[in-house]
């Protein structure tokens, strides 16, 4: 379930953790040795927002630049352009030739990468704290001065297509998820994959990128997030120096393209060479961005926790261990998005069962939780996990910065995370039942199924000596 593409090098593990941090985002709940007011914000005259969070545990800093543009801003024919541009952002400026950005960061002991999501594109460096100015100088430079060379583009688009082959074309579960999303989302920008359709990549040109870059890469469409052992005023002064001189641009927000309400069940099947079946069930629900009542997304988060927030939760307990219908199962919901979000079930049936059995077993659990109040014990467990998770999250300055950046670029604002624990604590058993009844119904359901096809065989060879390809 790929909602973000980490780029440049394969940071797959990191990727799988991005949403854990998001789900448990909190920015200023006091913890031992911490004060509550360690996040600071300043907006420069050119519209650039700078957010600084002080964390003095280690003499390091993470610096991120978030642009409000991602795959959901795209349209037919240029899907994947946000992500390709992200690749090209490492290909040099007037001042720094291709490759130099990465070399400078490397020589300063830094780590860098970038990632593209549905609603944002972000770049980051992690450095020893005194090297923060290097990050600011380079990022400010490439905010407006990237040189998009045809020859570099021709190679890089090949790299992106290889990335797509690796992530999607040769991965039957990813292929299924892609078709599933294109079915569940009809008219919003979540319809196509972040990496884009292969055919659009094949026909992309450097002008598509230039337009995209000119349109979105301006200070008034960006947020700089810095977390680490730094003083906010020094960071603000540094931001004035490097980003301050960049003129604001004119940003036309894309048309809303709000996903229309679903009217009836949808189904999609994907046939691909595979050995093991796989199934996705997604119910169209609301998120913090568009919920009818403020508490609904939090109730949905707790609902997901009751169903699947651990080994003792209902799905693992009943479907994997007791009934043994599922070999694996997962439930996912992300409250912190701007628009309609899917409440997801995904899984693989156990031996002697098929995807239909798995679907029925999941539906049965939905029926139970819609008709019977959850137990106190379950609710307490979810709340204990959320409270602990907020402490654990502080072990990583990177995830703290991720939380701030994600909330900012999805339009919700980082302060929302401050109230996360309180909002979760307020969720009642009745509210959990209400959202289950309201949203987990057939009219809002999309099912995606992987139908494994025989993997053709050929004679394989093992050779010795000097045989070469």
């Amino acid at each position, binding site marked *: 379930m790929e909602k973000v593409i980490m780029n440049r090098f394969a940071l797959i593990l990191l990727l799988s953790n991005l949403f854990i941090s998001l789900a448990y985002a909190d920015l200023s709940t006091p913890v031992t040795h911490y004060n509550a007011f360690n996040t600071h914000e300043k907006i420069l005259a050119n519209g650039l927002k700078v957010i600084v969070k002080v964390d003095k545990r280690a003499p390091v800093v993470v610096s991120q630049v978030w642009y409000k543009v991602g795959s959901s801003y795209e349209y037919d024919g240029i899907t994947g352009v946000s992500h390709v541009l992200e690749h090209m952002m490492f290909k040099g400026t007037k001042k720094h030739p291709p490759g130099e950005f990465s070399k400078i960061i*490397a020589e*300063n002991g830094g780590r860098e990468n970038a990632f593209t999501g549905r609603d944002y594109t972000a770049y980051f460096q992690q450095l020893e704290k005194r090297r923060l100015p290097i990050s600011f100088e380079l990022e400010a430079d490439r905010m407006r001065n990237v040189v998009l060379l045809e020859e570099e583009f021709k190679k890089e688009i090949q790299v992106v297509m290889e990335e797509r082959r690796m992530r999607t074309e040769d991965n039957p579960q990813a292929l299924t998820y892609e078709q599933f999303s294109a079915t569940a989302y009809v008219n919003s920008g979540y319809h196509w994959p972040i990496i884009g359709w292969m055919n659009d990549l094949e026909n992309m040109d450097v002008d598509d990128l230039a337009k995209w870059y000119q349109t979105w890469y301006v200070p008034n469409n960006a947020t700089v997030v810095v977390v680490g052992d730094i003083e906010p005023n020094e960071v603000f002064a540094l931001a004035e120096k490097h980003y301050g001189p960049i003129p604001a641009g004119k940003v036309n927000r894309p048309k809303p393209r709000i996903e229309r309400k679903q009217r009836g069940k949808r189904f999609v099947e994907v046939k691909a060479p595979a050995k093991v079946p796989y199934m996705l069930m997604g119910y169209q629900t609301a998120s913090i961005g568009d919920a009818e009542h403020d508490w609904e997304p939090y109730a949905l988060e707790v609902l997901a926790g009751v169903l699947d927030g651990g080994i003792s939760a209902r799905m693992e307990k009943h479907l994997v261990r007791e009934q043994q219908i599922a070999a694996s199962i997962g439930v996912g919901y992300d409250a912190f998005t701007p628009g309609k979000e899917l409440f997801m079930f995904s899984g*693989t049936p*156990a031996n002697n069962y098929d995807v239909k059995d798995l679907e029925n077993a999941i539906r049965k659990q939905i029926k139970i939780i819609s008709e019977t109040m959850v137990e106190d014990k379950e609710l307490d467990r979810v709340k204990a996990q*959320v409270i*602990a998770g907020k402490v*654990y999250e502080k072990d990583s300055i990177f995830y703290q910065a991720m939380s701030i950046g994600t909330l900012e670029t999805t339009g919700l604002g980082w302060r929302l995370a401050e109230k996360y624990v309180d909002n979760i604590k307020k969720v009642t058993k009745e509210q959990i039942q209400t959202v289950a009844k309201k949203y987990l119904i057939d009219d809002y359901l999309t099912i995606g199924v992987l139908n494994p096809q025989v993997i053709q065989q050929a004679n394989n060879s093992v*050779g010795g*000596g000097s045989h070469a390809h």
Partner: protein
Amino acid sequence: MLIKTILISLCLFVTSIQAAPKIQHWVTDNGVRIYFFPTHELPMMDFRVVFDAGAARDGEKHGLALLTNGLLAEGAANWNASEIAEQFEGVGATFSNSSHRDMAVLSLRSLTDPKLLNVATKAFSTVLTAPSFPQKAFDRERNRLLISLERQKQSPDSISNKAFYEALYEKHPYAHLATGDIDSVKSINVNDLKTFYKKYYVSQNAVVALVGDLTRKQAEALVDQIFKSMGSGVRAPKIAPVPTLSENKNVDIFFPSTQSHILLGQPGIKRGDNDYFPLYVANHVLGGSGLVSTLSDEIREKRGLAYSSYSYFVPMREKGPFIMGLQTKNESAGEALTVLREVLRKFVNNGPTQAELDAAKKNLVGGFALRIASNKKIVENLASIGFYQMPLDYLDTYIKNIESVTLDQVKNAFKRHINPDKMATVVVGDAKKTQKN
């Protein structure tokens, strides 16, 4: 699982920037080796136990170590799996386990509020010292493992990994995946697990890494509480040395994918090898530093052949692999393999330039602070230091060790360790579409 092994192995190069709290080390009465690093900023702690009970101990029953590790939390004392999980999750603690070639790992992360920590600790101790290996849970977990083995067969990446280790290690215990294979897993029964557990999950065979908001006294009490009812047993014996490859070896496996997955390598080095630092810095230039590495420059930046191309050493108890890899569309597989081999041959013959070496050292030294910037990273480092018996001042001397690496050492070490004429090459993909050259 492979990824986890690599991460654990690669993340070890860490140090303490804060001069004050050094790693504290002691051995309990029943032989558990403890590595403790107090950090008081957050009210939490990470407790990691590592047993010398990885897949290298499987014998003929490949998958045995992994199943044993996986069954610990499926039943212990009078609790079933749900009741065990409720103990941890009810206090917001996270329990996890994993099994690799060298190591079997159990981890607990908990808040340090005594009311919560006590519950988590008691459950952790029970799982560790009183697993019941219920037959029903065993049957279920074995079935789930069989399904995940089926799933490996639909991934060219998994297929290439499996074939690579088999080619490199032949009859050595490192040759098979921790997950085993379908036939071997089917041959395992619950008594095999009990026997394996009794032999290897003993305090003499355990190393503990502990990091968090605890005093020394609290740490000692915690360890005692967790291990008090574990038998002392004996340490696992040495495993056999890894033979070098006698000749080039090529394995081509057909798979109907759009890309070919290419792996190239040979047995590399052990933990504690004298050439460790020269080789580590050298590989940083060759393929260990992401986009700025030579390999990435030749494969990706100059030719657009792959999204990811890399090389690394995985130092293990015995010689872990030296691996180079990439994945490219079938049509480019021949070209990519040629470039991969040329880059390696040139690097072995000429080594890096002085400028490249200096840049790599700057990156490693300058980035040192990042390697120990969280409890999670520190506990990973402690576990490796303890398990592989690296010096206690490993972190304190890390920067000095990197800085003292010379160009001559690097060239010399790479030539001695890596022979481009005796490499195992695995290519998984649709060879019909591959241009031979």
